[in-house]
């Protein structure tokens, strides 16, 4: 059968999908296991690092970014780039204030019934 060879027509082998799935499951188990160990601040970094790794694996192989053209890759990465801007400016604002968001104590307007 004539195989078209063009940019968008890459067929990822099933074996690749299975290997990546295995890696994702392992990472899922690791992330739960590590959360039960007290590593202080490191817990957050590891949890985020594992989550980002899983996201990268899913995007590269399941979502075929590894086999797509550069324009698609650019648009995909731009989404996360804008998210980083969102985080950076918002946190920059809040952290630069004298104190973080208002007091949510007993008399707060958020929970007048308390």
């Amino acid at each position, binding site marked *: 059968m004539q195989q078209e060879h063009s940019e968008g027509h890459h067929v990822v082998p099933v074996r690749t999908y299975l290997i990546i799935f295995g890696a994702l499951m392992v990472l899922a188990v690791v992330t739960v296991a590590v*959360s039960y160990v007290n590593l202080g601040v490191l817990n957050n970094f590891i949890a985020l690092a594992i989550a980002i790794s899983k996201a990268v694996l899913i995007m590269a192989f399941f979502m075929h970014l590894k086999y797509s053209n550069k324009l698609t890759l650019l648009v995909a990465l731009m989404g996360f780039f804008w998210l980083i801007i969102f985080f950076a400016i918002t946190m920059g604002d809040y952290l630069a204030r004298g104190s973080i968001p208002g007091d949510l104590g007993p008399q707060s307007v958020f929970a007048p019934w308390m």
Partner: protein
Amino acid sequence: MAHKAGVVAPYFHDLDQQREVNTLGMWAFLATEVMFFGGLFVAYVVYRFAYPEAFYEGSHELNVILGGINTFILLGSSLTMALAVHSAQTDAKKKLIIFLILTIILGLIFLVIKGFEYYEKFDHHLVPGPDFEWHSSHGNQVQLFISLYFATTGLHAIHMIIGIGVLFYFLIRATMGAYNSLNYDPVENMGLYWHFVDIAWVFIFPLYYLLERYMTL
């Protein structure tokens, strides 16, 4: 090969360009979805910085076993979705149908488990509002955490419901033989949406369920 010819819209050069543009359009939409969920994640980060203890306390109330099972289920559904795309690409109609059905089933199981988790919250007086009961002084901030939990997982669940609905449509079309090696980009793009919803959960799970879990031992 004529009977398998994919239809190319007149404004495209060829099938490949059409396919690439379709995929690019889906990615553009997913970029907006990243910002959609992103808003809730930013809110989470702001309030976690503000009230860390309340967030740890609230996190301990979430069912890590059910959350963990749901993580495995979603990862599995991503695999079946990828295999569905593969089946469409290789003209394997029966496999395509099977994998679409499996993806739907896994998605439904996820929603059932999620529904049970929500029920647990109502049952344990953990739903923000007049019925909320809390043992420590951080009650209001814990309500904030759980509000964010409901908003984020609720938004995620809505995406799942819509995804499952659309998957049914694809299933019906697949049984009618609509997808083949020349016309698989609809399935591919559905896959992109489904994988995105999976990625959202990949971040939701550790951020909400796994905060200071070692304290619960």
